[in-house]
């Protein structure tokens, strides 16, 4: 706020500002409340949760829910699966996208136009859910953990993002490297990639989050629980009320005598799953500009 506007702030302006700030505060509260609620329930004593009326403030304090979650083999294994899927998929995405995008930035490259059209078509047309499913079947990717890593590593959006970024790099860098005798692979790895850290980080972070949150491909392609990503296990814990009944009778006995309820475990699992995303979040924010660019590309 500079001085000029301070002097001439009419009454209606001030009312507008007050109302506007109030609306923003309400929106922030609505955005945060459910997340805070989850954290609170995860820490609350089971007896208090069953009484109900719990909202935004933990009643009592217990870490039993988290203890149970971190001791559960199913949850831990699926968590490790998700980490493996997210990182290997992202590594493939970055490598293949960079390799495909780089030639498109060279004006003289004969296949430039052809490849661009080839890629753009996939933005508008796709085979749809069932033919894709049948393809996975042909490739023996059903109930194969590779199905979480390999498919759709190269997408039109990422490719356009990379190409646009590469085009912004001074072509002289490439030329001088070439005169020094570097081949195209070396130019890409030693000159272009180090200069493209921003776009690599942006695409990596979005890809990791996307894979982290992916549950649908696991639902249709994976049958064995051993391969499940953590979101599938979470789905089971949250939506299948019989999960707890199926548990070991000793576990049920434990619920009866202990300070926690299934709600503790459900909410603690949610927190454990959301935590890495919340940690990445401040870093992703830096790259929202890239996200907007994706939007711009779409448009």
């Amino acid at each position, binding site marked *: 706020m500079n001085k000029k506007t301070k002097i001439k702030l009419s009454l209606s302006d001030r009312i507008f500002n007050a109302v506007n700030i109030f609306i923003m505060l309400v929106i922030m509260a609505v955005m945060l409340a459910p997340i805070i609620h989850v954290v609170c329930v995860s820490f609350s004593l089971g007896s208090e949760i069953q009484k109900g*009326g719990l909202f935004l403030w933990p009643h009592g304090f217990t870490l039993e829910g988290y203890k149970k979650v971190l001791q559960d083999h199913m949850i831990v294994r699926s968590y490790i699966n998700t980490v493996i899927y997210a990182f290997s998929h992202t590594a493939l995405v970055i490598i293949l996208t960079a390799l495909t995008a780089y030639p498109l930035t060279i004006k003289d490259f004969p296949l430039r136009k052809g490849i661009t059209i080839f890629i753009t078509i996939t933005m508008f*047309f*796709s085979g749809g859910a069932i033919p894709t499913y049948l393809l996975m079947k042909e490739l023996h990717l059903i109930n194969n953990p590779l199905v979480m890593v390999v498919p759709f590593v190269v997408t039109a959006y990422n490719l356009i993002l990379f190409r646009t970024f590469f085009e912004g790099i001074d072509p002289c860098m490439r030329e001088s490297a070439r005169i020094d005798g570097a081949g195209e692979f070396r130019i890409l790895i030693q000159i272009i990639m180090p200069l493209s850290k921003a776009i690599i980080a942006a695409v990596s972070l979005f890809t990791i989050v996307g894979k982290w949150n992916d*549950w649908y491909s696991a639902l249709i392609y994976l049958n064995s629980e051993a391969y499940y990503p953590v979101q599938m296990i979470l789905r089971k814990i949250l939506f299948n009320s019989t999960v707890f009944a199926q548990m070991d009778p000793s576990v049920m006995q434990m619920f009866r005598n202990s300070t926690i309820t299934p709600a503790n475990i459900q909410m603690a699992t949610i927190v454990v799953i959301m935590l890495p995303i919340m940690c990445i979040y401040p870093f992703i924010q830096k790259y929202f500009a890239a996200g907007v660019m994706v939007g711009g590309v779409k448009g």
Partner: protein
Amino acid sequence: MARQNKKPVPKQRSFWKRCVKYRSLILMSLPGLIAVFIFSYIPMYGILIAFQDYNPVEGMFGHNNWVGFKYFKQFLQNPYLFRLIRNTLLLGIYTLLWSFPAPIIFALLMDQLTNAKFKKTVQSISYLPYFISTVVIVGLVKDFCSVDGVINGIREFFGLNAVSFMTDPKYFRTIFIASNIWQGLGWGAIVYLAALSGVDPQLHEAATLDGANRWQRIRYVSWPAIVPTTTIMLILESGKIISSDFTKVLLLYNESTYETADIIGTYVYREGILGGKFEYTTAIGLLTSLFSFILLITANFLSKKISDNSLW
């Protein structure tokens, strides 16, 4: 090779010569192109099974008998056809009606905030839900809307009876759209905020000097700046009317809410993936994508006529 090219050649050499010259680049792009070909183009070829009797032993590429439009006819004779189309369209239209304007209004209001720090905080917090997975979102919705959940707690506080939101078809669309807005409000606003940040502050000052009040400045300075973006987004969204996020519906619906919740996407999942009727559901999928393509083209055409903004 570099030595031979000391002088820039003014004339472009022939296609094949350049291919030889840039063979390392071709080699470089090959893995990515193969990946695109396999995972994007082969399924397009797979659409053909909509016109065939799929034989699991032969597979997608094998010899399958051609049956013409048999499966399309089967879909048109489906007793649930009307309900499926109605649910799909209504869910899409209501989503467009509510979820589309919300980020625009939010962006316009956020743009009016004078304190940069406060604005940044509002932005950061509003993006947050976008990064939460659908499973967690739906889990939260179910928890909040359950009979002993928070929302019914508030209702009871005001002396109202508890409602079973999750099993009453009446509430399905409201729940779906409200949670969509909760998740997408901040993220959706980014595009509009970017457009608004391009507005010259002098325009606002000039308007203020000319005696424009806040509302008039939003209407005549801010709004025109985001009209092109809004139009483009509207065209894109209109193509999605019949392809609402069915994975979220899958998590959110149950048999008691099929009456309003069962859409084409979920039906295809049940009949195709669970039921194994691959040809039938491929035919439905093809019809859906054709329809959404027509919608997109129509919206683009109309927008070109009316506002001169268009995708192509």
